[in-house]
């Protein structure tokens, strides 16, 4: 699929200290492969981490992809600092619901520092993973993940109707750290809906994590030349890249990468859907989360989360606006360049009637043609930038979801507390015989006569039991809440840093694109000027 080949040949901007940026943007040479090279590394991966492309299964792995962010940029599915305890039984999905155990999450900061250090140095090799003790356990091996191909398929859906869909090939390779060779360990095909299923599962079982988003289901924010058709090869190609990015994000997340269902997603083709559904995660899903804008009156909202929710709303709004305008800008720019192509034709026609002026005109016209056709590649490259922005548009939603979950938790907590308080009061009233609160029982008692002391005792007993239970529940809810807040906040901090890094890199790469465009423009017009001077 040639449409998206982004071999940016930046005529090395002198004085640009961003060599690493340039390297990031250079495409791997993939002579004539069907799955053409995408050189878009998700920002935030260490410099030199390039996308590995399958070429008829021949390995061309250069460096690792899918390095873990936490844990010093080592294996995607493992942190060198992880203790052996981690590699035991695959995480019980049931257990995952509880707040994650307090363990060093691969020391994210140190890991980041190491990774960033690598970035700055522009190193292209594996780093601290080298000192890992080799284990045969999958978790600790470094792996590479790629979504290498996309294929149109037809099949029968749940209602036995024929449908066309696209399937994506996911290949996982593990890398022996001793010799750097990678071995294909798994390869299977998945369709978009399975990715969605995976994500929905993760959302339920990791409510405190900002779960990486999927690429858009339908093409939006397209500028006019691009197709909004889901079957369009360019769209499919960009989606393939987006899905790969999604998997790499999960694989490099210190917590998510350990999830069994994720592991099975990569390794167990058949029956995976059943396995996921068996976890019963759909039942655990809080349907209230679907009602995005329903308000739950929380009496003591956590200001941090309220602010964060507000931020995520604003972020979504501003990025949407940005993407819309950018699409319009692209449209207009396209028009400007293409109209110049007309000069090519008319100069050629004009040169036919001229004697001395003819040659100069003719050759200048050729440069105008070059100018006009250069816009296609330029705008294709810009789509990468748009995709990077889109990822964070969707990330903002994920962020909001975490805030929302917290809000609901808080609400439930407050409801439980309220309920407990009211029961306590009831109990007290019964015990002391004073009726302060209105209750049906009280009323009927008044109307139909007092209840017997035995009856009252019974009721008090029941209430006391309930109060006990309630207090236990409240205690655990409180604990849960605090754990949630702590873990959520840790992930949010991790996310913030990731976001700042990624977006800064996106902006840099955008600036680099613009610089390249300007240089091309100067080149073409200088050439044309020279032709004119010879007229």
């Amino acid at each position: 699929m040639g449409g998206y080949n982004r071999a940016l040949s930046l005529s090395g901007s002198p004085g640009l200290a961003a060599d690493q940026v340039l390297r990031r943007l250079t495409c791997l040479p993939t002579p004539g492969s069907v799955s053409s090279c995408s050189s878009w590394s998700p920002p935030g991966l260490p410099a030199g981490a390039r996308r590995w492309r399958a070429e008829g299964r021949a390995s061309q792995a250069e460096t690792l992809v899918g390095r873990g962010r936490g844990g010093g940029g080592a294996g995607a599915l493992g942190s060198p600092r992880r203790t052996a305890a981690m590699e035991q039984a695959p995480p019980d999905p049931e257990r995952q619901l509880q707040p994650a155990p307090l363990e060093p999450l691969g020391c994210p900061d140190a890991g980041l520092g190491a990774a960033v250090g690598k970035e700055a140095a522009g190193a292209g090799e594996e780093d601290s993973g080298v000192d890992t003790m080799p284990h045969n356990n999958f978790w600790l091996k470094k792996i590479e993940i790629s979504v290498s191909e996309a294929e149109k398929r037809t099949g029968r859906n749940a209602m036995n109707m024929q449908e066309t869909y696209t399937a994506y090939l996911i290949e996982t390779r593990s890398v022996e750290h001793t010799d750097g060779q990678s071995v294909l360990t798994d390869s299977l095909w998945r369709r978009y809906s399975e990715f969605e299923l995976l994500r929905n599962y993760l959302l339920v079982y990791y409510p405190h994590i900002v779960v990486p988003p999927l690429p858009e289901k339908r093409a939006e924010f397209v500028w006019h030349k691009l197709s909004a058709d889901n079957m369009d090869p360019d769209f499919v190609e960009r989606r393939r890249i987006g899905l790969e990015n999604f998997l790499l994000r999960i694989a490099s997340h210190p917590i998510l990468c350990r999830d069994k269902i994720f592991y099975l997603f990569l390794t167990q083709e058949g029956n995976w859907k059943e396995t996921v559904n068996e976890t019963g995660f759909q039942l655990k899903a809080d349907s209230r989360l679907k009602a995005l804008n329903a308000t739950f009156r929380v009496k003591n909202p956590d200001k941090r989360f309220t602010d964060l929710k507000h931020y995520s709303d604003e972020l979504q709004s501003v990025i949407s606006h940005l993407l819309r305008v950018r699409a319009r800008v692209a449209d207009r720019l396209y028009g400007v360049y293409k109209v110049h192509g007309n000069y090519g034709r008319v100069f050629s026609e004009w040169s036919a009637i001229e004697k001395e002026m003819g040659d100069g005109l003719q050759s200048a016209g050729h440069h105008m043609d070059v100018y006009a056709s250069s816009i296609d590649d330029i705008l294709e490259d810009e789509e990468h930038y748009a995709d990077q922005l889109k990822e964070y548009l969707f990330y903002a939603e994920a962020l909001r979801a975490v805030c929302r979950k917290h809000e609901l938790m808080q609400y439930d907590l407050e409801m439980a507390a309220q309920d407990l308080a009211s029961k306590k009061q009831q109990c007290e009233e019964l015990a002391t015989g004073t009726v302060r609160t209105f209750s049906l029982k009280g009323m009927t008692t008044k109307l139909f006569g007092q209840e017997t002391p035995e009856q009252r005792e019974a009721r008090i007993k029941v209430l006391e039991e309930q109060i006990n239970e309630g207090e236990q529940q409240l205690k655990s809810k409180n604990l849960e809440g605090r754990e949630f807040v702590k873990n959520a906040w840790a992930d949010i901090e991790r996310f913030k840093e990731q976001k700042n890094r990624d977006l800064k890199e996106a902006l840099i790469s955008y600036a680099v694109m613009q610089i390249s465009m300007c240089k091309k423009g100067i080149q073409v017009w200088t050439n044309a000027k020279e032709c004119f001077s010879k007229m």
Partner: protein
Amino acid sequence: MAGGPPKALQSTGPHSLRDMPHPLAGSSSEEAVGGDSTPSPDLLMARSFGDKDLILPNGGTPAGTSSPASSSSLLNRLQLDDDIDGETRDLFVIVDDPKKHVCTMETYITYRITTKSTRVEFDLPEYSVRRRYQDFDWLRSKLEESQPTHLIPPLPEKFVVKGVVDRFSEEFVETRRKALDKFLKRITDHPVLSFNEHFNVFLTAKDLNAYKKQGIALLTRMGESVKHVTGGYKLRTRPLEFAAIGDYLDTFALKLGTIDRIAQRIIKEEIEYLVELREYGPVYSTWSTLEGELAEPLEGVSACIGNCSTALEELTDDMTEDFLPVLREYILYSDSMKSVLKKRDQVQAEYEAKLEAVALRKEDRPKVPADVEKCQDRMECFNADLKADMERWQNNKRQDFRQLLMGMADKNIQYYEKCLMAWESIIPLLQEKQEAK
């Protein structure tokens, strides 16, 4: 024999071979040019044409050639060297300093015309007068009348749709000034036109209006004689070389028209692009207010886009002011040239018709009647003038277009350089804290 009334012509007139003195020969004042075709000297600044060393613009057969060389082709040969030197230029004209005049009846703009010359036709070495557009228009008509065999440069468009274009805006006035300056310079550079008396008066008279009033009576002979050639004569075939010129002009005007449309379209697209850019930049600014660490980088990008927008605006303004008007001027030029070609055809047609008539009459007169001869002379001079002017025009056109198109390329280069600078300057800003981490 041309006979009759004095050949008071400024330009090449219908002289018979025998009447044409050698241009370099001293000629008696009557036959000499200077052609007081015209006006009583009182009304004109006194000119003396006694200088026999001057290359005089009219009548001259270089001894030895049999062709009725028009003055201009000869002069072209002589003056071509002068042009290359530039040093022997003896007439310089500049149009500048536009000023607005508000009167009860109307508001208009005048331009200062400064003339420096060592020519004897000018009494003073330097003149400075003020003229308005209608004065230029008057001059052009006069030149067309008095020098019908020559290509008169075009004026910028006369009529401006009020309300669409602001006639008093700086850009419009400046564009017009440049075009008027070009107009006078083209006349100045022309070996025949620059000696035209109307031109002289235009450059020097304190009160042009008074002169204009006299103008009606001052039709030159040539003007009259050409005017007499009505559309009654139809030319059978245009001679090859003129047909070629005609074809060339047709295609040329066509191509220029296309280029004009393309350029306009480009400007339109660029303006629409600019509109979007002006919305695009500020969104980054809005975003930066939400962020902490990203605030500066985002703000930087916003400013950068703003700079690019400004550069783009400058580009579109430049193209509108400098590029389009010159294109249009050349379209007007080729239109007026085509009408001169037609006039030439008329002259040839008249000659051929008269010749035929004579042949049919089968008279025994051995020599061709005077009026037919006159026609022939007229035609041959016209042809010569036209060819010479055409050659000069081609050269100038080449210069002008080379300059125009190089200018266009330059403006685009400058635009991209400005944008490049803007983007390159924010790279360090964007990268800043990353290393610091």
